[in-house]
């Protein structure tokens, strides 16, 4: 008899055949994050119904916020699954924005050349992060803490040296670039009284988030590289012995998270027509919370893209949703802290269920 078997017989859940499928559903690794999202949604839906939480416009408030965190959270999740952390994103968000703004305004680049250049700069910083982590064995928390401040310093210094200001303007550069990078989108079917709103005032970043999520889902769960990322986080030595190029993969993941952060900075710059050098320390915590609420194991080796998307949605609601309720807004941080604790405990339970999944069913 093994652990799995004994659990199966002891657990009150096993019994009638109908409860079995439910148990299977709970054993999906993203079940915890999905359940949490549904609970939080119902909670705020109930308390916020008077203040339009459930309307298309109300949903856009938290979806727009969630999308920006979400674009960065997924690559951060990859790193965390691989056993690393990247907090330099806080400085890479403004870096992405100001590099784009300066490219266009100061150097006269075409907007797309500016986007490309901004990505190249971000990738270079990510490469430095990855090289430092893989070559020196210094924990990535410390390495990226250092690069966070280095890049934040460079943002301010180079801004002033090159353009003479820390607030850059970025006028509309074209219909297409605005549409893709920074605009508000609505889809309303019909008109007049019969109009039906599918979505309203969603920012471009929301659609970019969907694209990033689909791309990352492919990488982690469909392509063979996902196996490498999971294996590397599970046991790095074994992964290396199995022939997985762990160092290269890690560097690539740091480049990916840096580029994702720069992308968010760019969408903000294009949307607001300005870019500032202000370091976004809050986003560091926001992304980590989303990843953890999404069920990714802090020590690496486990996590799903779907889970992180649910985690980000949950976080978005909790962060913005309080404005739709009668609760005091000062309670916001308390809610987020409680959410994090509950999520971690719940995820542990669900993960144990997943590991003890037995094959006894005929």
């Amino acid at each position, binding site marked *: 008899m*093994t*652990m*799995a078997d004994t659990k199966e017989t002891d657990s009150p859940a096993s019994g009638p055949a109908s409860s079995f499928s439910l148990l299977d559903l709970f054993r999906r690794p993203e079940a915890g994050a999905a359940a949490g999202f549904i609970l939080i949604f119902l909670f705020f839906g109930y308390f916020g119904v008077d203040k339009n939480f459930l309307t298309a416009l109300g949903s856009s408030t938290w979806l727009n916020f969630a999308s920006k965190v979400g674009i960065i959270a997924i690559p951060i999740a990859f790193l965390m699954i691989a056993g690393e952390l990247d907090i330099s994103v806080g400085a890479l968000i403004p870096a992405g924005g100001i590099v784009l703004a300066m490219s266009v305004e100061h150097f006269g680049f075409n907007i797309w050349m500016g986007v490309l250049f901004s990505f190249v700069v971000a990738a270079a910083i990510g490469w430095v992060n990855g090289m430092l982590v893989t070559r020196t064995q210094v924990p990535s928390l410390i390495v990226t803490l250092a690069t966070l401040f280095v890049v934040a310093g460079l943002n301010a210094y180079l801004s002033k040296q090159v353009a003479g200001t820390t607030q850059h303007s970025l006028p509309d550069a074209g219909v297409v670039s605005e549409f893709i990078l920074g605009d508000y989108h609505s889809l309303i079917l019909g008109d007049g009284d019969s109009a039906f709103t599918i979505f309203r005032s969603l920012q471009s970043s929301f659609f970019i988030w969907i694209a990033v999520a689909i791309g990352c889902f*492919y990488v982690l769960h*469909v*392509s*063979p590289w*996902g*196996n*490498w990322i*999971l*294996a590397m986080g*599970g*046991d790095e*030595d*074994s*992964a*290396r*012995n*199995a*022939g*997985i190029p762990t160092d290269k993969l890690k560097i690539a993941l740091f480049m990916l998270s840096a580029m994702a952060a720069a992308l968010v900075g760019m969408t903000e710059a294009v949307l607001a027509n300005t870019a500032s050098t202000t370091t976004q320390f809050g986003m560091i915590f926001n992304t980590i919370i989303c990843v953890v609420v999404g069920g990714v*194991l802090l020590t690496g*080796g*486990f996590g799903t893209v779907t889970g992180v998307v649910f985690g980000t949605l949950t976080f978005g609601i909790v962060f913005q949703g309080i404005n739709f309720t009668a609760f005091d807004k000062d309670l916001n941080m308390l809610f987020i802290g409680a959410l994090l604790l509950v999520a971690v405990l719940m995820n542990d339970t669900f*993960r144990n269920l*997943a*590991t*003890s*999944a*037995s*094959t006894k069913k005929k």
Partner: protein
Amino acid sequence: MSDNKTPVLEMRKVDKSFGPIDVLHEISLKVNQGEVLCLLGDNGAGKSTLIKTLSGVHQPTRGEMLMDGNPVHFDRPRDAQEMGIATVHQFGGTYPLMSVGRNFFAGNEPTKGVGPFKVFDRQKANRIAVEQVQKMGITRITDGDRLVGGLSGGERQSLAIARAVYFGARVLILDEPTAALGVKQAAHVLRIVNEAKRRGLAVIFITHQVMHAMAVGDHFAVLIRGAIAADFRKGAKSREEIADLMAGGESMADLEANIEGYMETHDGHVPEPAH
């Protein structure tokens, strides 16, 4: 089976030093096809260094290594693997939160699809993994999607060994595979070792449990302070003799007699441990 006279893997007078510290002295070993070489030694005897030298992590300071009679040199673990030397460590190099299929193929994933959009062929991976593990005698694993964390220690070891065999290993180095296991689980792993031997693999089995070594070994080598202290074939020495050798020549029987004598004269109390 081909010529049994040429060992699959051989070490000739291999020394290994780390700076001024000599860890291995003139180690000579050989292992033939379809044979289990048991490498016995107490903690700190140099077993780990020897394994790492065999699997390409360390390079010998002096001496040579031969495969099928030809000198070989491994710069990296990958070189040794490509020559068919597979090392399975204590916890099997498995990833607890990954499925059986994904574990089995980590680093060598089967794919389908064309161009850059390759797709991990989950069904194929699961099918082959379950097939191979079952062939090794682990019939309890029937679902390739199951997470390895739910398997027992013995099953994980077996999975790792099955993986090595499937990927064409000719020499299997097992580093203390039974150390963390219960009696039943250990018996399981020993059966798998026998199965690997039956399939013609050369197995190097590292352990400090004499019973486990006696159960599967054809050939024994005892390592003391980095040197081979004894090298003998199956049946040449008794269990007690081997245990004595491992304890550094100090006779276990003497030790036991001392303790018994002390207990007789001290109302059944055991002696104070020496510091």
